[in-house]
């Protein structure tokens, strides 16, 4: 027989625990210098052009949840005819909460045929992955995807437990 009172208090306790965890998660940039690092990486790599970057044309194929951040499959495709007159010349991939925000900077051209690249990336935790693609006329397009990461890649076992 379950004591209804005990059951209730257990539920209340669990709910408050959950709320507490949510509150911790909601703290912006807790214990990470993510925003500053992301800003610096964007400033160094994209420069003032990022202010005029338009959203779209990019497809980020990334799982919504990764158990481990050590190796997460990522595929990026940019909509482009890839002709000498109109092509993607650069794809830069960033993760805004990684200790090093830049993940990869790809240079390609019309000979690629399709503007796409696939690789496996490391993620330090739940965060946004952003892609900036530069066209041959200099304009930028951007897209962002959120990914939940259960165990980050940057903590060593010693730090994790």
């Amino acid at each position: 027989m379950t004591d209804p009172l005990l059951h209730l208090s257990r539920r209340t306790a669990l709910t408050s625990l959950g709320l507490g965890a949510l509150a911790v998660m909601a703290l912006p940039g807790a214990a990470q210098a993510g925003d500053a690092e992301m800003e610096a990486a964007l400033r160094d790599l994209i420069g003032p052009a990022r202010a005029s970057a338009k959203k779209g044309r990019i497809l980020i194929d990334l799982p919504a949840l990764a158990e481990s951040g050590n190796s997460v499959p990522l595929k990026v495709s940019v909509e482009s005819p890839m002709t000498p007159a109109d092509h993607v010349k650069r794809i830069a991939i960033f993760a805004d909460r990684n200790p090093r925000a830049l993940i990869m900077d790809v240079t390609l051209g019309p000979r690629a045929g399709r503007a796409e690249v696939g690789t496996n990336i490391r993620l330090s935790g739940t965060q946004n992955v952003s892609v900036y693609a530069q066209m041959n006329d200099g304009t930028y397009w951007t897209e962002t995807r959120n990914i939940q990461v259960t165990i980050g890649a940057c903590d060593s076992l010693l730090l994790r437990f």
Partner: protein
Amino acid sequence: MAAATRIRVPATARRGEIMELRAIIMHPMENGFRMETNGEYVPVHIIHTFVCRYNGAEVFRARLEPGIAANPYLAFTTRATESGTIEFIWLDDDGTFEVAAATVEVT
């Protein structure tokens, strides 16, 4: 550092066809944030650049950062223009490099 590489290039292709190329190299990609049991960080040691050349002309280049997983894998495409050699080059932090090549017959 001699490292094992694996590449995939189609043996034959029609002219103008888009070929998918894949390349992987066995490399730890030490990100510099990993701590050993003695409390010291393992220094950064990564492949910093990957280049693909088609008959000597560069068709793809990637700057890799510690945010790339160990044994870096890359999949990308190139248009078949002529028969010849497709060459993959990985540049290591320690100054060494690794090359793998395959031939493709374009009809």
